[in-house]
C-alpha cells in the first residue's frame, strides 16, 4: 500500500520511539499537521510552542533530561530560520535534536517562492548534518540516517527539510531496521595501548585531578566515573556542562572550574601533575590563558571527537573513544577493586592541600543581608527541593550562581546553554524537561533580561498545564554584562540598565499563571514554598541586590589561578 510522505514521516518517528513533538504549523507543513490530527493523535504528544526557537530549545531540554533525541516540526521560511538559534545551541552542546522543516515544492525551489529559505544552506554550520529530501522514496531512509547521526558518536542536531510535494506524494513505506552510512563511523572503542599508557601515568600521579565534561553525561559514564574516582581517591572538577556527572555533595568534588570556578578547583588545575580530561574540550572559558593551564601536568584526554583532541592544548595521551568505554577499560587496566593504602599515602599531601584551599576561600556571600542576595535564593531553592529538582538556566549571572550554589548530584538535572550561551534557552528547555518528567519539579533560574527572550512560552505552559517554576533573579540589569563593565570598562554602564520591564507578577497572571514576588530575604522561603505547592506554572520575581557580582572571576585570557576574589 502506498502512503503519503506525511504518513511516512510520522510512522518513521514512531519506529524511532518518538512520542513527543514540539512544533508550530504553517503552509508548507499543513499536510503533516493534518495527518497528525487525523491518524496519529494517539501516538504523539504534540506541544504547540509560541515561537519556533522555543520548539528547538524544548526538544533540546527534553533530550538533555532524558538522553533521548528531541523532535521538532516547523514550517518553511521563517519557521525554519527561527530554529537557527536553537540548532546552534544544541550543536555547541552536542545535543541530539531532529528538526523537520517544511519547504516549498521541489519545482519551486530556487524561485524565491513564498516562504522559501535555503534552510539547509543556512544551517549547515550549526547542525551535525542536514538533508533536503528530494524524493518521497528517500524519506524513510533519510530519517533513519538522521536519527543515527544525531544520536551516535558526538551527538548533535540534524535538520531534515521536506518539500511540500515530497510530503504529499505517496509511495510504499518500508522503514529500514538498520542502516549503514559508509562515510560515518565514529570511533567508540578505546585503543588498548593508549589505555595502558594512561594507566601508567595514573599509577604514578601524586597530584591528580579529573576534569570531567558534558561527554561523561552524554555517554552515561557517571557510574564508571564514580567508581574510578572514589576507588582511586582522585578529586573531580567539572565543567558547566558536566555538572551532575559526579555528585557535588561528595567530598572528592572540587566544584566547577574555569572563569567562575571555585578557588580550589582552579588552584588544583594550576598545581596538578596529572590531568585526566574526560568528555571535555578545553574551552576558553575553562582554560583561561591556555599556555598556563595545568602547566605542570601530564594530560590524558578521553574524547569521542578527534577534532577536540590537540585542538586547544597539547596532550600526552589522547584516547579517542566513548567516555564510558574509556573509563571502563581504564578501570580494568588498573584492576581497581578497592582503595589501596599505598595510593592513599601517595595522595595524602595533595588532599590536605585541597582542603587547605577550600578553607582559604569558599564560595561566599553576605548571608545577613536584608536585601535579597541572588545566591541566597539558589541556596534556598536547593534546600527546599532537597537537591532533587531539574534546574534549567538562562544565561548570565543567574546561570553562574545556579552552577555554583545548586549542588547537582545526578546527571541530566542541570540543563544550561554552555557553548553558545543562549539567553532565552532556560524557559523552553524547562518545558521540554517538564514534558518528559511531568511529576518532577522543574525550575528555570532566570535573569530579568533573558526571561524576556522567550516569555511568550507562558502560554504554552498554561495550555499544557506544565508546572514549570521560573525564578527570576531580578536585578534590573543585563547583570553579567554590567559586571564586565564594572570590572573592565570603568563602570561605563552602556545600555545594560533594563529597569523598564513588565511587572512579572501581573504578566504571569495575564497569561493565566501564578505570579509571586519577594522583595526581602525574609520572604524568600515563603514564596518558594508557595511556588512549590502550586500545581501549575509560577513566576517568582525575586527583587535581588542590583550590584551583586559573580565571584571568583578569572578575567578573560588570564591564567585561571589569577582569580578576582571577594
Amino acid at each position, binding site marked *: 500500500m502506498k502512503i503519503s510522505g506525511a504518513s511516512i514521516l510520522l510512522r518513521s518517528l514512531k519506529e524511532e520511539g518518538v512520542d513527543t513533538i514540539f512544533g508550530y504549523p504553517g503552509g508548507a507543513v499543513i499536510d503533516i499537521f493534518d495527518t497528525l490530527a487525523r491518524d496519529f493523535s494517539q501516538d504523539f504528544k504534540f506541544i504547540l510552542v509560541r515561537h519556533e526557537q522555543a520548539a528547538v530549545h524544548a526538544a533540546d531540554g527534553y533530550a538533555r533530561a532524558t538522553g533521548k533525541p528531541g523532535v521538532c516540526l516547523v514550517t518553511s521560511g521563517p519557521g525554519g530560520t527561527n530554529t537557527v538559534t536553537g540548532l546552534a545551541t544544541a550543536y555547541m552542546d552536542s545535543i541530539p535534536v531532529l528538526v523537520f522543516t517544511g519547504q516549498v515544492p521541489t519545482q519551486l525551489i530556487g524561485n524565491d517562492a513564498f516562504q522559501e529559505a535555503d534552510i539547509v*544552506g543556512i544551517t549547515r*554550520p550549526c547542525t551535525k548534518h542536514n538533508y533536503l529530501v528530494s524524493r518521497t522514496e528517500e524519506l524513510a531512509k533519510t530519517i533513519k540516517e538522521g536519527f543515527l*547521526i544525531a544520536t551516535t558518536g558526538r551527538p548533535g542536531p540534524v535538520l531534515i527539510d521536506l518539500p511540500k510535494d515530497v510530503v504529499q506524494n505517496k509511495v510504499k513505506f518500508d522503514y529500514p531496521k538498520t542502516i549503514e552510512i*559508509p*562515510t560515518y*563511523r565514529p570511533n567508540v572503542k578505546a585503543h588498548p595501548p593508549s589505555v595502558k599508557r594512561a594507566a601508567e601515568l595514573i599509577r604514578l600521579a601524586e597530584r591528580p585531578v579529573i576534569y570531567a565534561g558534558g561527554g561523561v553525561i552524554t555517554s552515561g559514564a557517571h557510574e564508571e566515573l564514580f567508581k574510578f574516582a572514589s576507588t582511586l581517591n582522585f578529586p573531580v572538577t567539572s565543567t558547566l556542562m558536566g555538572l551532575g556527572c559526579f555528585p557535588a555533595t561528595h567530598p572528592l568534588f572540587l566544584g566547577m572550574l574555569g572563569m567562575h570556578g571555585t578557588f580550589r578547583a582552579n588552584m588544583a588545575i594550576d598545581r596538578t601533575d596529572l590531568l585526566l580530561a574526560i568528555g571535555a574540550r578545553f574551552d576558553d572559558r575553562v582554560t583561561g590563558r591556555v599556555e598556563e593551564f595545568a602547566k605542570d601536568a601530564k594530560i590524558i584526554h578521553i574524547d569521542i571527537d*578527534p*577534532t577536540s583532541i590537540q*585542538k586547544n592544548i597539547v596532550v600526552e595521551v589522547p584516547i579517542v573513544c566513548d567516555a564510558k568505554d574509556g573509563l571502563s577499560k581504564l578501570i580494568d587496566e588498573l584492576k581497581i577493586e578497592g582503595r589501596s593504602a599505598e595510593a592513599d599515602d601517595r595522595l595524602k599531601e595533595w588532599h590536605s592541600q585541597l582542603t587547605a584551599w577550600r578553607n582559604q576561600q569558599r564560595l561566599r556571600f553576605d548571608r545577613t543581608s536584608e536585601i535579597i542576595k541572588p545566591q541566597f535564593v539558589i541556596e534556598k531553592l536547593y534546600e527546599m527541593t532537597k537537591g532533587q529538582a531539574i534546574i534549567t538556566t538562562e544565561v548570565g549571572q543567574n546561570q553562574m550562581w545556579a552552577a555554583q550554589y545548586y549542588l547537582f548530584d545526578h546527571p541530566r538535572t542541570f540543563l544550561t546553554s554552555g557553548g553558545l550561551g543562549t539567553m532565552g534557552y532556560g524557559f523552553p528547555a524547562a518545558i521540554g524537561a517538564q514534558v518528559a518528567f511531568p511529576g518532577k519539579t522543574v525550575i528555570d533560574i532566570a535573569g530579568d533580561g533573558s526571561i524576556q527572550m522567550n516569555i511568550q512560552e507562558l502560554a504554552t505552559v498554561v495550555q499544557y498545564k506544565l508546572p514549570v517554576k521560573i525564578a527570576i533573579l531580578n536585578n534590573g540589569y543585563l547583570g553579567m554584562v554590567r559586571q564586565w563593565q564594572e570590572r573592565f570598562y570603568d563602570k561605563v554602564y552602556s545600555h545594560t540598565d533594563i529597569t523598564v520591564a513588565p511587572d512579572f507578577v501581573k504578566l504571569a497572571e495575564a497569561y493565566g499563571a501564578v505570579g509571586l514576588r519577594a522583595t526581602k530575604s525574609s520572604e524568600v522561603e515563603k514564596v518558594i514554598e508557595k511556588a512549590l505547592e502550586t500545581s501549575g506554572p509560577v513566576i517568582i520575581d525575586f527583587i535581588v541586590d542590583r550590584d551583586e557580582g559573580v565571584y571568583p572571576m578569572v578575567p578573560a585570557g588570564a591564567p585561571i589561578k589569577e582569580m578576582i576574589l571577594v
Partner: protein
Amino acid sequence: MENRKVISAIVENKPGVLARVAGMFSGRSFNIDSLSVAPTMNPDLSQMTIVTHGNEAVFEQIIKQLRKLINISKVQDLTRGDYVDRELVLVKVKATSVKRGEALRIVEIFRARIVDVATDNLTIEVTGSQGKIEAMLELLSSLGILEVVRTGTVAIPRGRKVSRTGDTGD
C-alpha cells in the same frame, strides 16, 4: 612554521558537499590556496584536491575536521609521502612582433603549447608542478601577462599507493 599541504579527499557525489567543505574552511578560518573537484571512476564519488598552508597544529585540525564531515569518505595528506602534483594554466601574454620570438622560446623551454594566437598576443597552455608554473609565469611576466587562468592543483601519490575510492578511514 607554515608549510604547503596537499590534501586528497574522496567525497560523496551529492549536492552540497562542496559547500560543506568550503564552509568548513571559511567558518574556521583555514586557508584554501586551491581546490579542484571532479568525478572519479565511481560515479557516486568525487575527488577533491585541496591545497592549503598552515602550521602543523592547524593542519591536523584541517584533516580531522574534513574527516568529521559526514559525506567525506577518505582524506589523505599527500604531503606526508611522495606525490605528483600538476596544474594546468592558460596564460595570455603580450606578444608584439619584437617579443614573439622570446615568447616562443619560453614556451619551448617549458614544453608548453600555444593554443591561441592574435596579432598582439598569444595564449599559452602549460601543465606542471607548482614550481614549474611559478618559474614560467615569472619569465613570462617580463613580456607582460594580460590574463592567467589556473585550474588549481590536482595530485596523486607516487608508486604503488593509491587513493582508493570507496574506502573509509585514513
